């Protein structure tokens, strides 16, 4: 093609596109990702949910913004797992990139850090992977937390579950990091209230390299329930060494870790009947969107989703999508809609009361034959509890 003809065609094409530009403009959605640093291992569980959601919406003709459908385009940056950097990024996304919508960063400290920025600009954002009693201290109005895994609710629920399975003597080991310690604070009195004796209560640092002493003591204590308030790395260590030493307590709980796909890869049947924290399972038939989401995820990424983080991240996208369909992109309308509507998610209906999810109950999962089943509370359970 002659160069001038090509240019002329280009100009004509551009003019045509400009005429229809408004409809073709993508909706720009901004967020930060912990691509590097302390949280980097956890971030893909969130990013994959975002990517899958975007691709699904775009394949279906785009995001319904009330009056029209527009393609989704992501604007994202690495926050280096640094909450301060994340707050800075959200400031940039809002003031500099002028994005239309926001998705959440990964982790409790990061959510709390960006909450201030959202407040400052009155920009609503549905959070996801944050779980701490501290979220209630955040001023409501611009951030919402769909999680039901908040330590002051986990403690009593876990104690009730343990009691229902017949636990009389519990051994607790806890990472010294905040989420574990917060859970410890509410768990110990709750166990007491359920009449369960705490025979061991020890904390350990995040990079503990060996648990032989701890696990030998647990084995010798005659505890029939082991509650490990663990993070992923120490969940791995616990599982491997508990098998070696032969910790045989029928009830064994690990806080964070078993929902990660690699955990099942590492332990297979060894991890069977381990109980963990989580409020979503693809096996709950009442949640019509759950199983299709699970199947599509496995098809896209060749691995299972993280039952906690991926599910939460996807839920936050669903909530945003439904709110935007109703309210459009106007911040005030969006804020009012998120705050008042009930949303249909892969985890069933979600409605916010203040910053918290008022519907989804605090729940627990059990790994049964390689599948994650909800075993508590009874009204969402997908399988009965099995002792190890």
């Amino acid at each position, binding site marked *: 093609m002659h160069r001038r003809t090509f240019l002329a065609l280009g100009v004509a094409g551009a003019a045509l596109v400009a005429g229809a530009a408004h409809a073709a403009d993508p909706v720009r959605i901004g967020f930060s990702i912990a691509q*590097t640093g302390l949280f*980097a291992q956890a971030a893909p569980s969130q990013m994959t949910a975002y990517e899958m959601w975007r691709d699904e919406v775009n394949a279906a003709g785009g995001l319904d913004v009330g009056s029209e459908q527009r393609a989704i385009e992501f604007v994202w940056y690495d926050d280096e797992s640094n909450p301060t950097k994340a707050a800075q990024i959200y400031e940039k996304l809002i003031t500099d990139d002028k994005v239309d919508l926001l998705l959440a960063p990964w982790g409790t400290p990061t959510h709390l850090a960006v909450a201030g920025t959202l407040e400052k600009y009155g920009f609503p954002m549905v959070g996801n992977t944050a779980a701490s009693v501290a979220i209630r201290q955040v001023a409501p109005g611009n951030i919402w937390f769909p999680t039901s895994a908040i330590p002051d609710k986990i403690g009593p629920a876990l104690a009730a579950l343990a009691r229902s399975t017949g636990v009389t003597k519990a051994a607790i080991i806890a990472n010294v990091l905040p989420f574990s310690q917060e859970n410890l604070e509410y768990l110990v009195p709750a166990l007491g209230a359920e009449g369960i004796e705490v025979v061991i209560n020890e*904390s350990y640092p995040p990079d503990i*390299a*060996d648990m*032989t002493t701890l696990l*030998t003591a647990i084995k010798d204590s005659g505890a029939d329930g082991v509650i490990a308030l663990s993070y*992923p790395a120490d969940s791995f260590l616990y599982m491997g060494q508990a098998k070696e030493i032969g910790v045989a307590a029928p009830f064994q709980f690990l806080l964070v870790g078993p929902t990660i*796909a690699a955990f099942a890869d590492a332990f297979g049947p060894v991890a069977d009947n381990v109980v963990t924290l989580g409020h979503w399972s693809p096996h709950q038939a009442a949640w019509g969107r759950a199983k299709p989401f699970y199947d599509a995820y496995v098809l896209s990424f060749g691995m299972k989703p993280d039952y906690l983080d991926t599910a939460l991240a996807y839920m936050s996208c669903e909530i945003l999508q439904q709110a935007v369909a109703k309210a459009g992109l106007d911040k005030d309308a969006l804020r009012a809609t998120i705050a008042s509507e009930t949303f249909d998610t892969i985890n069933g209906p979600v409605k916010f009361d203040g910053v918290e999810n008022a519907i989804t109950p605090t729940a627990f999962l059990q790994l049964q034959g390689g599948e994650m089943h909800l075993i508590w509370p009874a009204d969402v359970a997908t399988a009965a509890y099995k002792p190890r």
Partner: protein
Amino acid sequence: MTMDLIASPQLLFSALVLGAGYALVGLGLNLVYGTMRLLNVGHGDLVMLGAYVAFWCFALTGLPPPLAAPLAAALGVLLAEALHRGLLHRLLGAGAERIEANSLLVFFGLSIIVQNLAALAFTASPRALRTLDDVVHVAGVAMTESRIVILLVALAVCGGVLIGLRATVWGLAIKAVIDNGRAAAVVGVDVPRVRRLALWAGFAIAGLAGALLAMVEQIGPFMGFPYTIAAFVVIILGGLGRLGGGVVAGLLLGFVQVYGVALTAPTFSSMLLYGTFVAVLLLRPQGLARAARIRS
């Protein structure tokens, strides 16, 4: 915690496995530092790459990690050679202090590059593999097969290197270069070749260690940094360039962590590790084995 626990052979096994792992990771770093004065803060990233070799071999072909370990070691050799040709020869001309400071930064840069390339290639999602996870009971000690393999291979490699240093020509040459590069050159040692060999060996051992540890750890692009710190703690504690001292220090740290926790409380596990390190260094500024000869 009771005396029964302290006397339990179960504790001894765990301390040995942990210590042997530290010793192995430290040994590779010590070879590289001792002969070339390179502070390789990317050492743990070689462990990470070795772990990925084991993971992918296992995931794609079912090859168990102990058999993938030689491949991981070979990858280490390749990287060592590439690095030597491309970059290190530019650094090695300077004086020892200059080399130390510059290599710290070069390897910090390399470490960032390798970690992020690994994250781009493999994603940061944690991976794990399950193999050799049966538990064997011998004389009342429960031992997971993978941990037995780690212990035996680590001790064999450490022992082999230490014996080789005394019993082979190349080993003696490496020792001579570690002790005094200039004097070694005077008595006819081909110092550049010996350094290159030591670099190969150091990187190979790190890769091999990673392949072994893949059996018991989560694998991810950012898993290396703790191994880097552990390796430095081990070789500084043992005395820089003192390969035997480093192996002893590695084992010692395994015992300090396992028995220290038994005698105090689990919450002090990490503080015991760094506390021992700091305390020893304050009392003996050149590490356990006096390395006063390290001067060039």
